[in-house]
Every structure is written in structure tokens, then in C-alpha cells.
């Protein structure tokens, strides 16, 4: 379903990773009440004031400023909360807002709302369009990756089980006049939901939030377009992640994935691998905000992998081009060294890799771990990494299913399912919540399951 334009959205608006200052923004008609519910009191209208947030039992000091619509950037009530840029703290604040009815902003949605409110001119609007396109591509890439991963497999399995369950309820509504349709009993329905809920809550408990991952040291790939950044990104992870193509600018957003390495002193450790490829090129195309985030992502990297495919280390336009020397926190990586035998090998490369064959990869991994030795923490690779968007969906789905079970409680002993249309309504919204993780299940798909299960049709 497309996004509405006046509900309340929230997003972390500072670059990924650690930074001095973290920024969380809210916009929409419930902005002020969300703020009140997380403990902001007193007037903060156009006034940056220190506040104490109570995000789920934790008191967080922050700075807050609000802008009343229509005289705000988005034309709606807006708020900006500034706090130390610790990913875990920002993550907590984000979740506190989500639990109070805000939803995660879509890519470029703040600027989109500004556009709708008539606050942007056409050139700025084009930048918005480019940003939306860029970030949504990255999200789709991430989504297809997700579906291939374990989280995606489990979620997809749950979507199918839930759809089967909904089909049994719908069959009792839409096909009751059919000989073959045996409506599901409340107890049988409850048992099915218990199983699905068990799997979903297990998934939640075994996963860690994205905030924790954001605290890992950030290793950022930087280089000119089409130098093989995405290929290297995937090769390091040992699987497909970013969209790879020969067209420059295919990867347009910062893609982030935890990468497990052998720690210098033995054991395993983790870093966050970031690919900003694409965001660095057609510099004028993106709206200013997107450019700024990309630039700061590179600036604040704990470690830069400067990629060169033989054409020299042309630093990303996002890096200050006036500086002719690479920053000190960089590893110079020579890629495609197989293809360019004609060109002379560059003497100052720290490591040469041929990503598709794996040559040089273990050396690069070793170099990364060595450079970050003092900042590494032990790996928790067994747990799943949940993006805030996915975690929110998962939690919402769990809530819907719990609500469904609650509504069944008084009729568990009964034979026929009462209020089937209300039960179906809850199950349907649970299914919709899971769509982001496990795939969309349309009403027609559910009806198809009825036909496959029962001999329907007089």
C-alpha cells in the first residue's frame, strides 16, 4: 500500500555509525503527542532546549526543537531530537517513537512532504525524486537479499502458514454454502496461531537490533564508479548483497552489512561494512540532504577502503577533492588486477584483489582486522540482524496475532468459530505486517489456498 501523507513518520537523520551528534526527526499530525508520551514537556517551539526523554525506562538527555505546521519544513508539525550519536541510543529513541504510533519514514519522505507542502522549487524536487529512486533501489536490493537469508526464509514460511490459516477462516465465511468446507474450530485456530507466534517471537528474541550493529566499527568502501566496489563488498561478505551492474551508479545508497573477521588475537570479531557507491557520483542529482549524509558517512568512517581498478585512486567527489593524499585511516585496494595487466601495477596499493576468484581477499580481511584491532568486539554472529523497519513489522505482526488469540479465548471450547469476520480482519492485518519480510500475500492468493484445500463450487 502506498504511504499516507499526514500520519507521523520518524527517522534517524544522521549518518550511520557513531558520530558526535545523532539526529532523530519526526513529522506528522501526532508529532507533539508522541513527544509528550516520551517525556518532552514544556515549550520547545523553535527553541532548542535540553529535555529528558524517558524511552522505556531509560532516561536520555537530549536537545529538542519543534516546529509547528504549516510554518515548518514539511508543512506539518515537526520535531528534531539531538542526542549523542550513539547508535544504540538512537535506536532506542526510534523504537520508543514507533511504539507510540509513529512509523518509519520511507526513503526521502521528509523532503517529499516538504514538496507536497509546496516548500520546494522544481530543481529541489528533482533532487527529491533522485533520492527516492536511489534509496528505494537500495531497499529493494536489501529486501531481495533478506528473502534469501535465514530471516527471510523463516518469515516467508510464516507468511505461508498464516495465509493457510487465514484461508481456513475465510473458507468458513465465503464458502459456507459448500458441502466440503469444514470451518476451522476456535481451538484448532488457536493452536495454529500459537505455533506461528512461537516462531515469530523466537525470531525476535534471537535477533539483535540494528542499533547494536551500528555501534560496530564502520568500514566504508570508497572509489570512483564502476571500480568494483559492489563486487568487492559481496565478495567480502561471501554472498550477494548489493546490486551489481556495469552501469555506473547502480548502487545508490549506503548498503550496510555486518562482516565477521578473524580477530588478530584469535577468535572472531565483527565490523560493519558500508558501501556508499553511487551516492558519490552524479553529485548534483541527489537532494542536498542525501549528499550530505553520504559525505559524512565517508568522513566518519573508522576505516576507508579506497578502491582503485588501475585508473588511480580518484577519491570520491564526496571526499574533499582538495586533499591529494588519502586519509590516514585508509587501506588502498587494487581491484580487477586480473583485467588490467596492460596497466602497470600501482606500487602504493596495500593489497591487490580479484574479487570474483577470491584472490587477495583473506589478506584484505587480515588488514582490516589488524587496523581496527583496538576497536573490535567479539562476534555474535549467530543472531540475526534486524533492520528497524523489519523489527517494527515483526513486532506489529506479533501484536496482531496475540490480539487474535486473545479474541479466541472465550470461545476455545466452542465448535464453530464466532466473529469469524473480525478474526479474519486481525489475521489479514498480521499478514500485511509480515509482507515486508516474508512477501506479499494477496486476497487472491488466500482464496487460491481455499480452492486447493476444499472442493469448492456447486
Amino acid at each position, binding site marked *: 500500500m502506498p504511504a499516507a501523507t499526514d500520519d507521523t513518520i520518524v527517522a534517524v537523520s544522521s549518518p550511520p555509525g557513531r558520530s558526535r551528534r545523532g539526529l532523530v526527526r519526526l513529522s506528522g499530525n501526532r508529532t507533539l503527542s508522541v513527544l509528550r508520551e516520551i517525556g518532552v514537556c514544556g515549550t520547545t517551539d523553535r527553541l532548542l532546549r535540553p529535555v529528558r526523554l524517558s524511552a522505556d525506562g531509560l532516561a536520555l538527555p537530549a536537545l529538542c526543537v519543534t516546529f509547528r505546521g504549516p510554518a515548518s519544513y514539511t508543512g506539518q508539525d515537526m520535531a528534531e531530537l539531538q542526542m549523542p550519536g550513539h547508535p544504540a541510543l538512537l535506536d532506542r529513541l526510534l523504537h520508543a517513537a514507533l511504539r507510540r504510533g509513529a512509523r518509519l519514514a520511507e526513503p526521502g519522505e521528509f523532503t517529499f512532504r516538504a514538496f507536497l507542502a509546496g516548500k520546494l522549487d522544481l530543481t529541489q524536487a528533482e533532487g527529491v*525524486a533522485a533520492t*527516492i*529512486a536511489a534509496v*528505494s533501489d537500495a531497499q529493494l536490493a536489501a529486501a531481495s537479499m533478506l528473502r534469501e537469508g535465514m530471516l527471510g526464509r523463516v518469515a516467508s514460511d510464516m507468511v505461508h502458514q498464516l495465509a493457510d490459516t487465514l484461508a481456513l477462516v475465510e473458507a468458513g465465511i*465465503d464458502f459456507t454454502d459448500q458441502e466440503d468446507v469444514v470451518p476451522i474450530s476456535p481451538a484448532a485456530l488457536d493452536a495454529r496461531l500459537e505455533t506461528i507466534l512461537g516462531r515469530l517471537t523466537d525470531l525476535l528474541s534471537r535477533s539483535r537490533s540494528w542499533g547494536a550493529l551500528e555501534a560496530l566499527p564502520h568500514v566504508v568502501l570508497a572509489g570512483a564508479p564502476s571500480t568494483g566496489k559492489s563486487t568487492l563488498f559481496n565478495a567480502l561478505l561471501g554472498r550477494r548483497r548489493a546490486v551489481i551492474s556495469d552501469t555506473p551508479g547502480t548502487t545508490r545508497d549506503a548498503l550496510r552489512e555486518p562482516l565477521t573477521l578473524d580477530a588478530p588475537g584469535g577468535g572472531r570479531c565483527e565490523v560493519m561494512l558500508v558501501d556508499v557507491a553511487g551516492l558519490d557520483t552524479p553529485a548534483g542529482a541527489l537532494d542536498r540532504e542525501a549528499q550530505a549524509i553520504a559525505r559524512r558517512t565517508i568522513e566518519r568512517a573508522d576505516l576507508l577502503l579506497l578502491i582503485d581498478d588501475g585508473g588511480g585512486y580518484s577519491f570520491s567527489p564526496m571526499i574533499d577533492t582538495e586533499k591529494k593524499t588519502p586519509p590516514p585511516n585508509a587501506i588502498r585496494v587494487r581491484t580487477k588486477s586480473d583485467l588490467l595487466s596492460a596497466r602497470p601495477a600501482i606500487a602504493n596499493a596495500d593489497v591487490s584483489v580479484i574479487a570474483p576468484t577470491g584472490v587477495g581477499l583473506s589478506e584484505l580481511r587480515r588488514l582490516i582486522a589488524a587496523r581496527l584491532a583496538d576497536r573490535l568486539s567479539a562476534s555474535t554472529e549467530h543472531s540475526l540482524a534486524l533492520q528497524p523497519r523489519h523489527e517494527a513489522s515483526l513486532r506489529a505482526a506479533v501484536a496482531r496475532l496475540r490480539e487474535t488469540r486473545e479474541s479466541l479465548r472465550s470461545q476455545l471450547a466452542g465448535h464453530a468459530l464466532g466473529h469469524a469476520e473480525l478474526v479474519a480482519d486481525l489475521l489479514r492485518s498480521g499478514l500485511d505486517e509480515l509482507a515486508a519480510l516474508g512477501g506479499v500475500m494477496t486476497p*487472491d492468493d488466500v482464496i487460491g489456498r481455499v480452492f486447493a484445500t476444499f472442493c469448492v463450487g456447486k
Partner: protein
Amino acid sequence: MASGIAREFDVIVIGGGHAGAEAAWAAANLGARTALISMDPSRTGAMSCNPAIGGLAKGQMVREIDALGGLMALATDATGIQFRMLNASKGPAVWGPRAQCDKYAYAKEVQRLLSTREEITIIAGVVEGLAVERGRITGVHCKIDHEYHAPRESADCCGEFGAIDIAEKPIFLAAKAVVLTTGTFMRGLMHTGERKTEGGRVGEGSAVGISGALRGLGFELGRLKTGTPPRLAAETIDFSSLVLQPGDDPPVPFSDMTMDKFPVLEQKPCYLTHTCESTHELIRANLHRAPMYNGQIETSGPRYCPSIEDKVVRFAQRTSHHVYLEPESLSTNEIYCNGISTSLPADVQDVIVRNMPGCANAKILRHGYAVEYDMVWPHQIDATGMTKLVAGLFLAGQINGTSGYEEAAGQGLIAGLNAVRFLRGSDPVRLGRDQSYIGVLMDDLVTKTPREPYRMFTSRAEHRLLLRADNADERLTELGRGLGLVDDARWAVYQRRSAVIGALKEYMSRTMYEGGRLVDWARRSEVDAAMLTAAIAPALQSNGQSQWAQRQLVARVLADVQYEGYVRRQKREVAKMAAQEQTRLPTDYDYGRLTGLRREAVHVLSRFRPATLGQAGRLAGVTPADIMLLTVTIGR
């Protein structure tokens, strides 16, 4: 003969089925000079398959058609021989009113109603071509038999129409808007076993020219299949051994305008029999002679209405299937065998029937058959019914890939309404998904690709709790009044009823009952209609409503109260999306030009050419980010 006919109309409706009749009725009610052209006007309003109207989700649509001043509910109430409320034991959102009709009386009533509108000219003829100038329809080329005045007076009004002389040269009939409702007649081909007959219905021809005309205009056509069971002679069936299935007593009418003298016709029961194992074996042994299995028919039929051969193959473990024997008319002996739709050869059908209990000596009056027909992939129309290729050309009914009388009638009403609005230069009307099942139907047609004839189910409506049979008038009658579809009499009934409901609710909120407000007590899930009737008895007295209207009112108030929380939530969701539903998109936009739009989105948008941002958002393959992109670049 053709010389006496007017050559110019406001609206021409082609086809006299349930879509065509409703389209002509709506256009005429809006004051448009309307021609209704069909091959055999004596079969206008014919029930080609099961003589039943309504059912789950379909009954809600009939109520919606009624709330918008349509004719289907009127004709049903006048000719029903059994009325039943399906799902009556479940919540009111999923109640489905259903009626068995006397199929001859039904068609006759539709024809009578149409004849009360002097704006309508009935023409017997075959349309061979569509006249289009600069992308707009200007009329049709039609081989005319004669102008048709009134149904022929005969016992069997739907009998074969004699001697249609189509040898004459086509003449040109001008109109600014044309509604095309071809049903199963567009290159219709019927199959009974190895035997193939051209035609859309037994004893009738097929329309060939129109298919070619549509292709020539650039439309992408598809082919679908449907089927019908054998009909039996009542006097050859031994009903005494069968399970009787009576209708509701007292029955509830469909139309808000049915006040008294209901039911009109004698009420008839249906009977239940079944197939048996030896029949299933026989079917398995003859699958090579079944057109659906030997490759003779390649198009797909509906999964919700499988043939008996389908059932036997797909559910091989079952040894018996129910068959409902349903009377088709009070005036004839025809019995419809609901449950054994088939295109097996006649000799196999004979055995299938004789093996059913009570039918050992049954005589088959007409064998079952499957029919294949051309349709137009519905992404080529807008939710108004108008095609995106030819302005002023509207499609309704099976031509859009749907199945069912109610689905056809709903589309006919929308197309007739919008045809008149088009020629008058008024804004087109699209019903919302939250407003009606008709809206869900039209929206599904233009945003999804059907894999089988489309039938409505309540589970297709995400706002199912809002779309009840009992509140159809509340949802649509005011709208219909504003559009000119609702006449003074209906408007008066609506206003009176609304006032009574308002008074009941007011009474409930100010009256104390069992230690609290009556309205709060009524919210409890264990409160049912009988309990509420008792509780509000003082307010029910002397409100001037008939007995069944009274019962409907109580059910309605109860549903409103008990669903209140859910309804509020659904309405909030609807309100969020309202702006997108209102935002128009040009249907001739070159999406390839849009930088940043993903290739998949370009492909889907170019194929479907959504007319609103809301439609675009419901296309599979279009993401919320794509919608924002569209908004930024072309939506404003």
C-alpha cells in the same frame, strides 16, 4: 424495415444481458436517449446459468445496485421463488442474501421495467463494427432486423427468436457513447463432448465481427471459459426420496422499494441429491472425451465453479459430491442441477444424472456444456468502465473477464452512468473500495490480471466490515441521488428510514438498560437481534416501518453498534489514502521518460496506465517509493 428507426442516440448499449440491461436502465434514468441492441431482444435479462441472484458478496452487490437505483433487486423481488440469507449465523458484515428466481418471469420483468423508460429504443440486430474518429467513438455499424417494441406474448418469452434477418447491409447508428456488453457471445464456442457449436448460448449465434473490430482498434483480447450443468424435467424426478431445502420464512426482499406484497410468487423448495462412486469411475474412464482434459479447450475456467470432471480429478478421494436440484421456473418443468456443471459428452451426462438418487428416470431437457468466448483484458479500461484507447467506448460484464450476473450488473450500472457523464462532459465516477463491492470489483479489474473469470468474494474487500448488505443505502443512496440515479420515491424511502435509524440510536444512547446506557449494553458480543428487539421495543412501536423493514433496522443498528470500533479504525485507514484516490494520472503518460523510476515500475505502469495515484499504488510491482516519485513528477 430499418427505415423507421432513429439513427442517432446519446448512448448505444450493445447486448441485453445483465450488464446491458443495467447500463441502459441507468443511462435512461439519467435522461439519455438510449438504444439497446441485442441479437434477440426477447432474451433480454435471460439467466443463462443458475437462475439465482445474490449469495455471499454478490448479494451485497445487488443491494448496492438497488441503492443506486438499479433494476436487478426490483426484478429479483418480483420474481423470486426462494429467498435465503446465507451466513445468517455469522456477523452481519458477511450475510449474503440470495434468491432463486423464475428465470422466465425474471427476464420478462427486466424487459417490462426497460419498456417503462421511453428513452430506451430496443433494437434487434448484430453490431459488426465500431466507428471511431480521432480516438473517440462516434457510433456503430449494425445489421438490423427490426425495431423491437414489446416482449412477445408467449408462454415462453425466452424461446428462440424467429428469423433474424441479418442479410441486410449494416447501417450506421450514431452515438457519443457506446457500452459494449458481449457476454459469452464474442466468438462464442460451445462444447459438449466432441461436439462443438458456435454460439454464446444454446440456440443462439455468436458475434464474430466485434472481436475483429476491437482487435483492429488495438485492444488486446483474451479467451475465457465457463460452463453450465444439464437441466432435467421435474416430472421425471422422484423428489420424495430427497432432502428438502426450503427458503427463509418469512423471506427478506432485496430492494428498499419492496414494501408490501412480498413475496410475489409462490415459494419453492430446492432438493439435495448427490453423485456416487460409480459415476466418478465413469467420469475417469471418459476423461479423454472431456474437452477440458483432451486439449479441445485450452482456456482456463473458474476454480470456484469447477466442472464435475474437475472435482473428480482434483479431489479423487471423495466418493460423492452434493447436487442441488433447483426449480428454474413456476411455469415450466426445468430443474437446474447445481453441482454437475460439465462438458462431457451427452451419453456420459445421461449416466451421471441417472446415477443420482431420485433421478433414476430423469429426463435431460438440455445437456450441460462449456463455452469459450473472447474478452478484453480489463487493464484496458478505467474503473469508470471506459476504455483507455477509445474515448466514449465502455465495456461491462464478461467482456472484462468477470463472471456472474451481479458482477455484470454492477459494471453495467457504472458504465451506463459514466457513459452519460462522458457525453455531458461531467467528471467520471469511480466508486471507492471502502464504499462498495462494486468499487472493489472495478478497482480489482483495472489493477490486477485475472487468471480466471473474476467472481466477487467478501475476502476481496479489505474494508469488508464497512460493506454490509444492510447498510448499502447508507453507503450509496445519497451519492446516487446526487448523480441523478435515485428517483424521488426512493429518496423519500431512504430519508424516512435514515430518520428512523437516527431515532433508534438516539433512543439507545439516552435510555438506561441493565445498569448502563442501552447502547453500551448492545456493544456486548453476546447481544443478538432478538435481545436488542426486546430492549428497544418501545422505540420500535409506531415507527411506520413494515415487519421485515423493522427486522432489518434492528440488525442494522446492532451491526453499527457492534462493529463501531473496527469501523472507526478502517475509516481512519481510508481517510489516510483519500488524497491518492483523488489524484488523477494521465493514462497516456510515457513512463519510460521518468528518470529514477525502476524498470519494473515503468513496465507495470505502462501496461496498466492507472487513472489515479491510488490505482497505481495497488499495482503489483509498484512500491511506495515509486508512488512518491510519481507524485513529485507528474501527480500534481
